[in-house]
């Protein structure tokens, strides 16, 4: 089908990247995103490329596929695929290779699919492009491909649009797209970021199974060392556009040679360590040991949530129409219970983890406790007062608002892009702080020092700050009013592991010095294990299990908790 001769010889590596340098033209001149890297991948091998954001791992894969955006170009080096130089290949032949010989899976599966085209048709597009099926057989073939990625009822799903499928299902469709033409090389760029651990495991197992059964080579690009260790033969560690270490995965995790690899290894949350162990050795030594903050017993708990329920009415067209014409709906629609009668409490100075998979109701719970949405029934008692009775839209101006604050998931999206760091931190002070304008600046500086934000960054805008710095601004804003309870909604999910390590330690230190309580919402059990005294496991709006972190993690009672725990990939250390 193509006139390129691919050498099919076991001694020739499938992919051989030599001295590859990729440059991007930016307003401030040329930037090298990848510098003289060498990566080689044999047939049937699985290679992990590990690194933090900005390490050039994605750019490397785009360069291999030659899908760099307009500003980027391969400046030096060669990319040999089955003995053929991809750099010298004309675009028309390159296009034949893409999807047929080499494919890619992207992160955020929902965005990777055309939102207004049926998934079956999207698979057909690829099959037709590479002449894998004729016009008459193509839809049967597409259904077969969907079936191969274990999509239940593929004949129905063929007609689904991406928005009608769950995240995990979308990722299966993306995998189906990539594997439809049985390529030799699969590049998976953070394929499970944003998916739940159990979904992550299912998706990764599927990829491994399919690629093994077809003798394919795989490159797995990830920031998650555990994931790379669990699924790869060989690991390449990248830092700032350079490959710093290449080794077999057993050796790299047992005896990392490069300092950066060691730092990365240390920063990865895992069982059996403390928060301080995440920090680089020299910093960990400097940081004080974590004093076991005694949870105040005897005193009434700070927050008591009792039989809390949140229902959403199921709206559909039939009921709307019949209402419109004054008829009673034929069947009374069921209300959907996002939170279904949960009870728990948080003591003063305690940090409680709320874990569960997406859709389990953990965010709805935190929003109700935060008094951003109203409950359907049940009570929320905070400091002896039933704040659940106060309507959410009145809550923002009440003095109680000061005592419950929140740190949001995405440090970028939760800051007003037109506010400087100082203005963002000052916002709650100006709204509720009751202090004069003159004092605001000094209080901001005090808070910045507390969260370890250099004072000269205070006048910068969010886009001029790094992810970790933005996270610090978000934390400073939350503690500005000296709250009693902070709700942390996946505060480190968008951060690199080394930054996450620092932020988690900061949160711990702040809690100890300010005597706050935390409700830590997360899907990352390893992080919860490090930060929380107690943990609540939720599923389908209900609490499956709650108890001291140690006990729940080491000897889970509910089978669901066991499933969650076993789905986490661990580095073999």
């Amino acid at each position, binding site marked *: 089908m193509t006139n390129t001769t691919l050498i099919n010889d076991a001694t020739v590596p499938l992919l051989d990247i030599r001295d590859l340098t990729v440059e991007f033209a930016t307003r401030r001149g040329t930037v090298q995103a990848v510098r003289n890297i060498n990566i080689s991948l044999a047939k049937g091998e699985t290679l992990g490329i590990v690194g933090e954001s900005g390490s050039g791992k994605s750019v490397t894969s785009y360069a291999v596929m030659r899908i760099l955006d307009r500003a980027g170009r391969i400046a030096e080096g060669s990319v040999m695929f089955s003995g053929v130089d991809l750099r010298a290949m004309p675009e028309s032949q390159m296009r034949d290779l893409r999807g047929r010989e080499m494919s890619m899976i992207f992160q955020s599966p929902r965005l990777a699919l055309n*939102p207004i*085209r049926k998934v079956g048709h999207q698979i057909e*597009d690829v099959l037709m*492009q590479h002449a894998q099926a004729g016009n008459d057989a193509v839809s049967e073939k597409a259904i077969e491909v969907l079936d191969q990625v274990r999509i239940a009822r593929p004949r129905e799903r063929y007609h689904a649009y991406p928005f009608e499928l769950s995240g995990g299902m979308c990722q299966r469709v993306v995998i189906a797209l990539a594997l439809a033409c049985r390529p030799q090389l699969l590049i998976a760029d953070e394929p499970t970021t944003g998916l739940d651990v159990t979904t992550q495991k299912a998706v990764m197992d599927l990829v491994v199974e399919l690629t093994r059964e077809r003798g394919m080579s795989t490159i797995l690009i990830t920031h998650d060392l555990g994931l790379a260790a669990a699924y790869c033969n060989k690991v390449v560690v990248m830092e700032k556009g350079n490959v710093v270490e290449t080794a077999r995965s057993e050796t790299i995790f047992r005896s990392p040679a490069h300092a950066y690899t060691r730092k990365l290894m240390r920063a990865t949350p895992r069982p059996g360590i403390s928060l301080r162990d995440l920090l680089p050795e020299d910093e960990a030594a400097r940081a004080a040991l974590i004093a076991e903050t005694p949870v105040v017993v005897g005193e009434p708990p700070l927050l008591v949530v009792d039989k809390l329920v949140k229902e959403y009415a199921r709206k559909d067209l039939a009921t709307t129409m019949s209402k419109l014409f004054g008829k009673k709906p034929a069947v009374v629609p069921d209300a959907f219970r996002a939170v279904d009668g949960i009870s728990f409490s948080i003591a003063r100075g305690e940090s409680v983890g709320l874990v569960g998979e997406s859709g389990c109701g953990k965010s709805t719970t935190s929003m109700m406790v935060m008094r951003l949405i109203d409950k359907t029934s049940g009570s929320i008692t905070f400091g002896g007062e039933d704040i659940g009775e106060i309507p959410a839209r009145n809550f923002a101006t009440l003095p109680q608002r000061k005592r419950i604050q929140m740190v949001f998931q995405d440090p970028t999206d939760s800051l007003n892009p037109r506010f400087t760091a100082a203005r963002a931190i000052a916002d709650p002070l100006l709204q509720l702080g009751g202090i004069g304008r003159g004092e605001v600046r000094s209080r901001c500086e005090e808070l910045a020092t507390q969260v370890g934000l250099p004072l000269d960054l205070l006048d910068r805008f969010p886009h001029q700050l790094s992810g970790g710095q933005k996270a610090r601004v978000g934390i400073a804003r939350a503690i500005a009013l000296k709250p009693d309870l902070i709700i942390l909604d996946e505060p480190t999910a968008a951060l690199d592991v080394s930054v996450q390590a620092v932020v988690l330690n900061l949160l711990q230190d702040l809690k100890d010095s300010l005597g706050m309580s935390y409700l830590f919402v997360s899907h990352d059990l390893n992080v919860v294990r490090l930060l929380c005294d107690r943990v609540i496991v939720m599923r389908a709006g209900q609490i499956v299990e709650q108890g001291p972190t140690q006990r729940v993690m080491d000897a889970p009672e509910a089978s669901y908790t066991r499933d969650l725990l076993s789905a986490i990939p661990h580095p073999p250390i």
Partner: protein
Amino acid sequence: MLATIGKRLVTVIPTLIGVVIVTFLLTRVLPGDPAVYFAGPAATPESIAEVRKSLGLDRPLPEQFLRYVSDLAHGNFGNSLSTGRPVITEIASRLPASAELTLLGLVLSIIIAVPLGILAAVKQGSWIDHTCRIVATAGVSLPVFFTGLLLVYVFYFQLGWSPAPVGRLDAFASTPPHITGFYLIDSLVTGNFESFRAAFAQLILPALTLCIFSLAPITRMTRASMLAVLASEFVRTARASGLDDRTVIITYAFRNAMLPVVTTLGMVFSFLLGANVLVEKVFAWPGIGSYAVEALLQSDFAPVQGFVLTMAVLYVALNLLIDILYGVIDPRVRLEG
């Protein structure tokens, strides 16, 4: 789909009620007293009062309004005071002329602007992109009456390519039978190619005038929206699966980029309805725009009310059409409906 349309139609009702009230009040608060105008320059206060009484203008406002509404309900838009003819027949005969002109202008504009916008986005920074920008800016910077006069000067006066800009047909062509009221369609349906050519020759210059005016928003929106979609992740997936450029740009990118373009089309159509008034004047086009302007200048409020009401209904219908188009393009909209 039908349910969506039904629901949208229900929401149209309050809008129409509002329009009826506003058109009624608007003509009452406009300066100029129709009674004075129609009593003539030599009128005595008595004769003015008599005219006012015969027009029903001496009654209290609510009563006038009720009469207006019940007339509307019976399809009676009132009579024009200056011509004495019923407004409804006048509008019915003139509306197709305006609609044909506006639609042809819009279609021409879409045919030119959409591909230009796509090309400009695909070849961002190339000469096509710059040409596109210059053409669009120039088109929107020139007032329509000026573009119209310029076209007449060049193509009629200087080159002599087009017939005299007076009306929908020149004197020698026969008027096609009234089927849709659109001369182009009617003459084609009856196989009268002579009339078709004549009608087209008359139509092309005013339509071009409107087209030039509306190029800018459509090109710019197509370009911007294509650029955004081309940078999205599913386009990258499509490229990474080796799909050819045509499929990536048309099937993947353009269909997604169409939503904002369709919204813009709706807005452009309403601009064109406004611009029409001037273009009809320049080309002596027997449309409703020129009819309304003349009526307004004579404080002849029945035609003005009729005009505003017709425009409002047209606009509502247009918005409904756009909503339906949305549903056709984007399955997510269908779900919400």
